[in-house]
C-alpha cells in the first residue's frame, strides 16, 4: 500500500479512537474537579452506553438514532442514581473514599450489565451505512466522520455548558472552592450529583458513537476507561481543552504505533506516555503548573 494512503488511513483511525478517549477524559475531569477523586466507573459507563443502545436496537425495531438517544439518557440516569445511592449518603466524603467507592460502582455496573444484557459482544449498524468514503486514496468508514463530528459537537456543548449556563457556573464554583460556594448559596452536594450525571452522559455518548465500529461487550469498559484516564492526565487533570487535544493525540500515537511498529505493544503506548508525562510534566502537556512540589 502507498505510504501516504496508509498514513491517512492511520491518522483517521487514530482521530476516531482519539475522540472517544477525549470524551471519556472529559468525564474524568468533571468528576475530578468536583470531588478531587478518580472515577473508576467512567469506562464502564462507556461500555454500558453501547450495550444499552445495541439491546434497544435489537429487541425493539427502532431507528439507530433513537436507541442511541435512549442509551445516553439511561446512562446519565445510571450515573446520577449511583451518586445518590453511594456517594451522596457519605458523612465524610474524602477523595480516597470516593475513589474506592467508584471502583465498587464500576464492579456493580459491569456485573449488572453482564447479568441483564448478557455476555455476547453486541453492535448495531453505522449511522449512515457502511459504504466507505474515499479520501486521498484511503477508504474511510462513514461512521468515523460521525464520531469526529459528534465528539467535536460534544466538546463545544460542554464548553458552552460550563461557560454560559447557570448550572455549569455553579458547578465550577463548587469545584473551585466548596466552602465559598456553599456560602453563596450553592448546593455543593447537588452539584456533585450533576457532575456524576454529566460524566456518565459523556461516557454514554462515547459508547453509542463508537460501538458501530468496534462492537462492545460487558468486559471492555475497563480498558476504555484507562485510555480516557491517560488522556485526562496527559492533558492536565481538570483542563477540558487539554483533555480534548490529549485524547486526539493519544489516539493518533496509538494508531501509528499499531500500524507502523507492532500491534502487540499498541496498548502500552498510552501508558508509557502517561508515565513520561507524569515524570516530566505532571501538570499535563496543556495544563498550567499549579502543582505543589514537596
Amino acid at each position, binding site marked *: 500500500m502507498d505510504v501516504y494512503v496508509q498514513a491517512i488511513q492511520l491518522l483517521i483511525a487514530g482521530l476516531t479512537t482519539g475522540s472517544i478517549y477525549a470524551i471519556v477524559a472529559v468525564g474524568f475531569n468533571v468528576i475530578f474537579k468536583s470531588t478531587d477523586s478518580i472515577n473508576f466507573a467512567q469506562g464502564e459507563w462507556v461500555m454500558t452506553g453501547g450495550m444499552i443502545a445495541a439491546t434497544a436496537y435489537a429487541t425493539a425495531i427502532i431507528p439507530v438514532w433513537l436507541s442511541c438517544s435512549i442509551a445516553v439518557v439511561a446512562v446519565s440516569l445510571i450515573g446520577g442514581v449511583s451518586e445518590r445511592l453511594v456517594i451522596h449518603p457519605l458523612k465524610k466524603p474524602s477523595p480516597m473514599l470516593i475513589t474506592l467507592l467508584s471502583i465498587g460502582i464500576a464492579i456493580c455496573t459491569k456485573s449488572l450489565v453482564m447479568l441483564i444484557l448478557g455476555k455476547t459482544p453486541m453492535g448495531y449498524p453505522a449511522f449512515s451505512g457502511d459504504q466507505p468514503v474515499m479520501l486521498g486514496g484511503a477508504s474511510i468508514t462513514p461512521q468515523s466522520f460521525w464520531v469526529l463530528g459528534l465528539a467535536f459537537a460534544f466538546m463545544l456543548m460542554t464548553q458552552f455548558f460550563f461557560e454560559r449556563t447557570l448550572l455549569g457556573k455553579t458547578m465550577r464554583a463548587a469545584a473551585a472552592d466548596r466552602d465559598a460556594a456553599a456560602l453563596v448559596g450553592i448546593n455543593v452536594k447537588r452539584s456533585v450529583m450533576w457532575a456524576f450525571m454529566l460524566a456518565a452522559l459523556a461516557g454514554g455518548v462515547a459508547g453509542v458513537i463508537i460501538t458501530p465500529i468496534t462492537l462492545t461487550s460487558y468486559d471492555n469498559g475497563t480498558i476504555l476507561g484507562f485510555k480516557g484516564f491517560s488522556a485526562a492526565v496527559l492533558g492536565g487533570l481538570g483542563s477540558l481543552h487539554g483533555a480534548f487535544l490529549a485524547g486526539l493525540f493519544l489516539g493518533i500515537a496509538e494508531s501509528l504505533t499499531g500500524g507502523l511498529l507492532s500491534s502487540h505493544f499498541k496498548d502500552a503506548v498510552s501508558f508509557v506516555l502517561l508515565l513520561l508525562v*507524569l515524570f516530566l510534566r505532571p501538570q499535563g502537556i496543556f495544563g498550567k503548573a499549579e502543582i505543589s512540589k*514537596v
Partner: protein
Amino acid sequence: MSEGSSGRYDVRILFGLWLVFLLFPWVAPNGYIVGLGVMFCINLILVASLNLIMGYCGQISLCHGGFFGLGAYVSGVLSSKYGIPGLIDIFCAMALTAFSALLVALPTLRLRGHYLAMATLGFNAILSVLFVELVGLTGGPNGLSGVNPIHIFGLPFGTDRWFFYLAWMVSLLVMWGILNLVRSRVGRAITSLADSEIGAASLGINTYGLKVMVFVLSASLAALAGSLYVHYTQFASPETFNFFASVLLVMMVAVGGWGKYWGPLFGALVFTVIPELLQSFHDLQLLIFGVGMIAVLMFVPGGIAGMLERLWRRRIRMKAGGGIAAPEVGND
C-alpha cells in the same frame, strides 16, 4: 492512629495467633483447604505490604497486583528457564521489583495528591502488556509453567503441607517485621504522614525520602508474596496480576481497615475465603462482591479492624465504668 492502648499486646497476640494457626494443616480436612491456608499467608503478605504504603503513608499504589506479578514472573522465569535455585530467584525478584518501584516512586512521590496512584496505574498496565506479549519468556497468554518447587537445606517444599509451613513462617516474619517497623522511631515518623504530611514535615521529617523508602519496601514485599505464589502453584498466568487484581487489593486494605495493624489480617481473610464461598453463585459472584465492598466502605469506615477495635473499647469501657458507663453506651 493505629496504636491504641492495646498496642503493647500486639506481639503476644501475633505469636499466639500464629501458634494456633500452626495446627491448621492437622485440622484441615484435605489438601485443598491446606492450600487455602497457604494462599491466606501469601495474601496476607500482599495486603499487609499495601497497607504499609496506603494505610501508613496515605498513598495509593494501583500496581500491587503488578509487583506481585513481577515477583512471580521473575522468580518463575529464573526457576523454570534457567534452573536457578529457589532462595536466589526470590532474592532477584525482590531486588528487581524494588528497583522498578524506586524508578516509579522517585519522580511521582515528589508531587502531592493522586500522582503515585496515576503512575502506578500506568505501570501496572505496562507490566500486564509485557506479561502477555513477551511470549518467549513468560509464555504469553497461556501462562508460565514448569516452575520448580523450592528446596531449602535439602527440604522439598513441594507438598501443600510443607509449603504451608514455609508460607506460615514468612508471613509471621513479615507481620512481625512490620510491627517492629511501625513501633520504631522511623515507624512513628511514617504513621505521622497519614495524619498530616505538612505537620510531619514541619517537625523535620523528610517526608519524601520516607515515602519512597516505604513504597520500595512495600513493593518488594509484594514481590516476595509473588515468588512464594509462583513456587507454590508452579504456574503463573497474566490475568492473576492485572489491574483488576491491584484494585481488589486496594479494596481489601480498605475493607480490612486501612492504617490498622490488624487490618490486613481481615482483608486477606476476605480476599481468600469470600471468592471460594461465592463460587456457587457463578455470574452473581461479581455483583455480590461489588455490593459487599460498597456496603463495607459506606457503613464501616474503619474497616473490619476498626469496627472490632470500637467494639473492644466499648466492652472495656462498660467493664470499667459499670453502671455509670451503661447509659452513655446506650446513647451512641
